[in-house]
């Protein structure tokens, strides 16, 4: 059993959860502060944080700064493509970004879980 997953699994899980919640809030046309908080948190941090996780970056403040930079970069490119292709769709953009985020976070979680299992098995053998 994995007893101590820590931020390596917990944070990507939170990021995926935030992506799912934000896109649901948008698709369900939720109004008010909850949607604002979810949307801003997701858009500002999550896509970049999840993508940087694929490259095995440590969980620290520098990652957070670059996560914001990568997030706004990905979102600006997605928005611009939609603007120039005249296919502007909030739902489409949110679904695309959420799928990207959840996919990347899942990859990170899976890898971390396997890595922890391997470490745990090695420890048992040694014990």
């Amino acid at each position: 059993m994995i007893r101590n997953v820590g931020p390596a699994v917990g944070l990507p899980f939170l990021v995926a959860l935030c992506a799912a919640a934000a896109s649901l809030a948008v698709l369900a046309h939720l109004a008010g502060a909850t949607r604002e908080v979810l949307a801003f948190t997701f858009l500002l941090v999550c896509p970049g944080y999840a993508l940087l996780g694929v490259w095995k970056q440590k969980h620290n403040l520098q990652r957070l700064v670059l996560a914001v930079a990568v997030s706004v970069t990905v979102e600006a490119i997605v928005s611009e493509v939609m603007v120039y292709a005249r296919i502007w769709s909030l739902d489409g953009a949110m679904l695309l970004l959420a799928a990207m985020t959840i996919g990347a976070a899942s990859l990170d979680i899976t890898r971390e879980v396997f890595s922890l299992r391997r470490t745990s098995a090695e420890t048992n053998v040694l014990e």
Partner: protein
Amino acid sequence: MPFEWHSLTPDTGDPTSTAGVPVTEADTPVSREPTDSQVVYPRSSPFPLLRQRVPFALLVLAIALWATSLSHISPSHMSDYGFTSVLPLSFFLSVGVMIGGYVLALRVRPLSAPILWAYNVVFIVVIRGTPQIVYPAVRYSWIYKHAGVVDYIMRHGTVDRYISFLGIYHNWPGFFALGALYTEAAGLTSALAFAGWSPIFMNILYTGALLLLMRSETRDERLPWLGVWLFGLANWIGQDTFAPQALAYFLFLCMIAVCRRWFRGGVPLWEWSMVPARVRAGRFSSFFDRRIPREYPPALSAPYRVALIGMLLGFFVVIASSHQLTPFLTLGLITLLVLCGHCSLRWLPVVMAAVIAIWLLGPAFPWVSANTHTLFGSLLTLDANVQGSLKNTAVVPFAQRVVAYAARGSALVILLLASAGFMRRRHDGRWKPAMAIGVIAPLPWIALTSYGSEGIDRVYYFALPFLVFYAASAFYPQIGSGRSVRSGIALTTITLGIAATLLLAYYGLDRMNLMPRDELRAVTYVTATSPAGSLLVTAASNDPIQFHDYEHFSYLALTDMFYNSKPGTYPLSRVISVMQGPYPSAYLMFTTSSAISIHLYADSSPGLIPRIEAEASTSPAFRLVYRSSHAVVFQYQPGVTSPPASHSPGT
């Protein structure tokens, strides 16, 4: 093993001792020198625990003083000195306590990153956030125009590259498309709902990006923290708002940080030694001839390398599609870094140039082809560019002269500190050429463009991250130095001085940046009641207009109409001749914020705008449709007798 983000570059006293140490993904650079936190300092205080708690206590005190000050600020009583003129004593005390506390926090061992971060965030909230908290509406008239472009994209789902007004934004829409996504995703109707908080958010991001950049240059942990503090104190350029420049600047900092952290080094294409010996044989020859330790890039695996390069290219594509000037400044800096062997991606400048060319000749071509004079008119006109960028202190009110000199004084102090820091580092053989290149790279742009009379400001803005690195080095030239009480007092005194200039320079124009709610109501009234295609004539370009349905109007500012021309004996007739054009309806609007901007900038002939307002109020050709304490709107009555022909306008 995960990649190490804190892969710091050795920064030892001896430049050759650790140069060329390759860095692997798993390791930090091998160095014989400890970091600053590893140095064992003599116990300088008999109360170390107390000393660690004092910065925290001072921060709490500063927050309390600031919170107390908020209820005593009355923005409507501002004088020509700007927001500073209505700030109570407790606000200044709060800033002073913060500065003292930060200097103390820098002296505590080991350094407490949470406390230093807390200081930076609180300082940003106090300086950049107070106007947003106490002002009745979002600060800066230009933010309303930016919100208008976001509103256009939200309603149309696209841009109009040939649009008559604010066309430049439709040709560089990256920031606005992003703004539309955020506004819609949050379920808001206008970007104005969050735009006012941008300065806080952007400055926190700048702090993070600058730490990333400076930590790649030094192992002294105090230096980056002092650098970001000085950056916050010396950044009086109001470009941290809801604007394309703010986003592009953040990505610019990230690009340089990524280049310096993971793609440092490389074979230089140019070296000082290539200059003929007789040219080199000057005063500084011994300095430049000194061997600069060659940098080696970390040994990255292929997937990491590809990911980082993808990140860099993504950043630059967004910069190039969002802002006009930043791509060129970024290209210039990275080209110099590559040429001098401080960035190993030798092909990067070529790709960046191609991205710029593709954007200019593709999506932005409608604007570029129609504005060649704007683009190239100020090319190589150094004198005009400098004169245009500097406020003409001879004509503006005395208070604005003080504000202008405060801004120049702040820049001068930073320059002097940076020079001192450079010299102190030079003596130790650690002058960090990459940072010096960062200072030098933006300079040619003073000669290349006036950038709407903001050329020098922008050059200073782009050199600032590198200037503050050297300025911080003036206090901490090497690990373990700058720990004397005298040094602490000097740092406190100088930063207090820079803070004083910041308060004057950053808030100096706030009398015109303050947008009364009355004016917003007047604009909303006009846009709600007038038919599409109407003309809106304003006194100056400083009204909170164009924030929604902006494409339904044509716009004209009286200050532009009468720019460099004599108003004549009856200036209103000239206004009427324009309003008689093919518009279904035409409005003439006078607001307090425009009147103040004309006063502060000395933008038109003295008394001209009040005279036009007085003439309109008595002319039968105009009907008063809206009046409040801060705004007056007249509607032009077509067909009603015009002023006498003898009152024809001058030219």
